[in-house]
């Protein structure tokens, strides 16, 4: 096993540990706010995965700076030979915005939940609902 392979194993282990903790919190933590926090951690982990997919291993590299606003074929070929894939960062931006909007909506719903039930604990909310059903 070379140094490179150990490095990649390390990176993927950390990513998986992150995703695992986020998933565990999402499923097992009863507090809604903690669930939302875990959801954002999970989303951020997926952004790192996206960035890694776009990563390109080339060493040594001197990033090429295009100085011409009207590049010819040779310039573009040189540029492409030393650039990273632009598609994963684009998808990451899209995912960040969607994640942000989902988080905003969830936070507002969580505040409403707290107003209605006086708690953010889903187990307690389930108990309150059961009691209310029993009274009727």
């Amino acid at each position, binding site marked *: 096993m070379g140094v490179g392979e150990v490095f990649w194993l390390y990176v*993927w282990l950390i990513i998986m540990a992150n995703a695992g903790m986020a998933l565990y919190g999402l499923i097992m933590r009863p507090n809604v706010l903690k669930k939302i926090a875990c959801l954002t951690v999970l989303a951020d982990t997926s952004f790192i995965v996206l960035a890694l997919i776009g990563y390109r291993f080339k060493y040594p590299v001197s990033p090429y700076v295009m100085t011409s606003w009207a590049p010819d074929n040779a310039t573009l070929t040189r540029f492409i030979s030393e650039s990273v894939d632009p598609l994963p960062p684009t998808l990451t931006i899209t995912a960040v915005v969607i994640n942000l*909007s989902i988080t905003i909506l969830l936070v507002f719903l969580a505040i409403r939940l707290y107003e209605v039930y006086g708690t953010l604990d889903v187990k307690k909310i389930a108990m309150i609902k059961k009691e209310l059903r029993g009274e009727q």
Partner: protein
Amino acid sequence: MTGLVAAVSILIVLFALAYGLVVLGISGPPAPAKLRLLGEKYLYYMINPATKYFTAESPEGVSAILWDYRGLDTLYETMVLFGAIIGAILVYREYLHSEPGKTGKIYGLSLIVRAVSKIIIWLTIIIAVAFGFTGQITPGGGFVGGAAFAVVPVLLALVYTLGYARRLGLTHRRALLLRATFLLLLVLVIITPLIAGGYVFQNQAKPGSSFSFPGRFIDSTPLGGSIFLLNLFELFAVAGAFTVAFILLGVIASLKEGD
């Protein structure tokens, strides 16, 4: 027991995911030495005067993909963002008509914090607007700029209190108006080529339609055609949308304090 079951199932899912990504190579080999063909094509065409039907006139690959090659994707993403904000407002629409913060403390945090914040607020505005204006040549763009811009109302509310921000004229109605105006302008930019006889979301000339937004500034700096306009309008639309959400959160918090 439930915790153990959950932990084991999560481990199985993650193992399968890692196996698929690293060993099976679902997303291609991890960290390849060569660029993928799709990424290569985007980089080749984004600013290439030789291929006038494919160029986006923007040396910033991410902006070119976001607002030109995959423009409809970004349009729907914008819709999701504004849908979520509208949903959040609908949950709390009754609070929008209340007038909090008038009786509370006006002066906010200490003099030092307020003096420093004055500088930071102006710097933030300048940086955010610069992100929007130069999105077609440097990393940044509408979303990033808008998100940075939305820090300003938060700072104002935190440092000077929400009542002060309101006295400055920062109300949710104005923020909603900002959002709606710039969304309309955004849609206008998108359908302008259609009115001119081209296609929806057209940026530069395509076969069958010679319409194209100005690709270059007067000194031949790339303008990215519609990318420049879309970035700029997106900046203010996103800033407005986030401001509404933050004002609403602030109003809810101050009303809760008042209880």
